[in-house]
């Protein structure tokens, strides 16, 4: 395990160095934006890594919840409810009622179908994990549960860091190009709200270190994930007057730029995975240490009780 980690870390370091060279030297300067465009080689891969980590956290949280009977029973209901929602959406959007706002590049029909697919996927995932767990037994062991929780907390932490990088580099680029630091555009706002939700997740974990926090924070992660589509939809139709970011449209992309971008995407994904990995190991070690401490103090308490229960000996000395 240690060897694999060092190997992975070496590759990541090499990729990051190569990516830096590609982004700053090899890639040509963009014609209209100038050198500031180079921030893209960090901004977009950071966003990608952050979203991947948040997704990891979501699935770990969901699987943590499958330990409870109630959720396993609910799997069918999730699929049915999602399908009902999706079908209702489909019926309504097929009619195109005048009160339903239409925006460019947004299809209500597509959105409804996505809702149905997501619901069915979740039900299958929960059922599948449940069935597989019964077959293998390993998936539901206490060790698996601890690892799931460690991955959940690590990915949330590392994801918040990458998301912060996104939220900082974005305005640095936007100021010279758009002329404003910030706009309540759908992507920006969704990222910000996602960041807020995950910060509140970390605060919740910080404020409680009892055993039940794993399941409590898992419920928060699932509710937070339910919130994201609402943020996305409501912002989409709320701030339509603001400039939409134009990327990759019009003009051809220099292959060297694409190369630099893809290298950085790979490098950041590896970097995120590596940091997350080492954080998971740290978390697991931390828990082992805590357990050892608890055991030691229990033993100490036993010894003290054994001594205290012999008052006659002490008084006679």
């Amino acid at each position: 395990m240690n060897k694999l980690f060092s190997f992975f870390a070496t590759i990541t370091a090499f990729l990051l160095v190569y990516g830096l060279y590609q982004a700053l030297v090899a890639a040509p300067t963009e014609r209209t934006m100038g050198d500031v465009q180079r921030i893209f080689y960090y901004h977009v891969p950071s966003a990608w890594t952050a979203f991947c980590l948040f997704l990891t956290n979501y699935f770990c949280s969901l699987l943590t919840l499958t330990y409870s009977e109630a959720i396993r029973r609910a799997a069918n209901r999730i699929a049915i409810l999602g399908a009902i929602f999706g079908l209702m959406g489909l019926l309504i959007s097929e009619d195109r009622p005048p009160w339903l706002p239409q925006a460019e590049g947004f299809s209500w029909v597509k959105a409804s179908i996505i809702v149905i697919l997501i619901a069915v996927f979740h039900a299958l995932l929960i059922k599948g994990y449940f069935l597989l767990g019964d077959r293998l037994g390993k998936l539901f062991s206490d060790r698996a549960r601890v690892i799931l929780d460690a991955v959940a907390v690590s990915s949330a932490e590392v994801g918040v860091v990458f998301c912060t990088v996104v939220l900082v580099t974005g305005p640095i680029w936007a100021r010279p190009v758009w002329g404003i630091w910030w706009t309540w555009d759908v992507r920006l706002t969704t990222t910000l709200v996602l960041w807020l939700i995950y910060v509140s997740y970390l605060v919740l974990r910080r404020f409680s270190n009892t055993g039940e926090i794993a399941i409590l924070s898992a419920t928060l992660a699932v509710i937070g994930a339910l919130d994201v589509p609402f943020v996305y939809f409501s912002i989409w139709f709320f701030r339509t007057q603001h400039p939409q970011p134009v990327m990759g449209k019009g003009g051809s992309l220099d292959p060297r730029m694409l190369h630099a971008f893809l290298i950085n995407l790979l490098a950041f994904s590896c970097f995120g995975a590596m940091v997350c990995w080492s954080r998971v190991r740290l978390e697991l070690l931390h828990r082992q240490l805590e357990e050892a401490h608890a055991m030691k103090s229990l033993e100490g308490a036993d010894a003290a009780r054994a001594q205290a229960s012999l008052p006659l000996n002490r008084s006679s000395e």
Partner: protein
Amino acid sequence: MTSFWSLTLATLKKDIRLEWRSKDALNAMLFFSLLVVVIFSFSFDPNAEESRQITAGLIWVAFLFAAVVALNQTWARELRNQVLDAYRVSPAPATALFLAKALGNFIFVILLEAVMTPLFIVFYNLRALGPAWQLIPVGILGTWALVVNGTFFAALSLRTRSREIMLPLLLFPISIPAVQSMVEATRIILSGEGAARFWIVLLLTYDVVFTTACLGLFEIVLQAE
């Protein structure tokens, strides 16, 4: 075996009786939102046209902050004498308990809104240019959106240190789309620009989704170990 609804009703009655005798939450909420109204009107001093644009935001922010006062009390009062542990071991379904608590909070916040809305109208010289009756569904759906998540997160933050601070930290990020929908709907109705129907439907969807999610996950939170 008592039915689900009679259990809900019994808990709800108990909560209302407790509140009626002490009036802790209601008094605190009323005075708090009165202060918010007065402070906001000093800070902004708007004319009639401006106030139509900004009051929607102010009114809901005031209600949101005031609702937190009531929500914090919901579960905290059950900790005394280990009432919550009794709930845990009782065979009554956890969802009945949750529903009763959410309904209780809903009634308190609606009462608060009924008292505070006339004050807002007086202080900010409000007159709706759009269809004013639509404010009723917006009020009901918006309040339920705040209260159902609030009751859930109040139960969640019960296990943490300094839970009074924890509740708004958890509730506000999740409530952002709901707050935005109700503010936007109210602003459209007050200023008479366009139709608020989309926002009302969005609020309704939000309510249905989160009520289902909270009811489904509440048992886990109550029995978490």
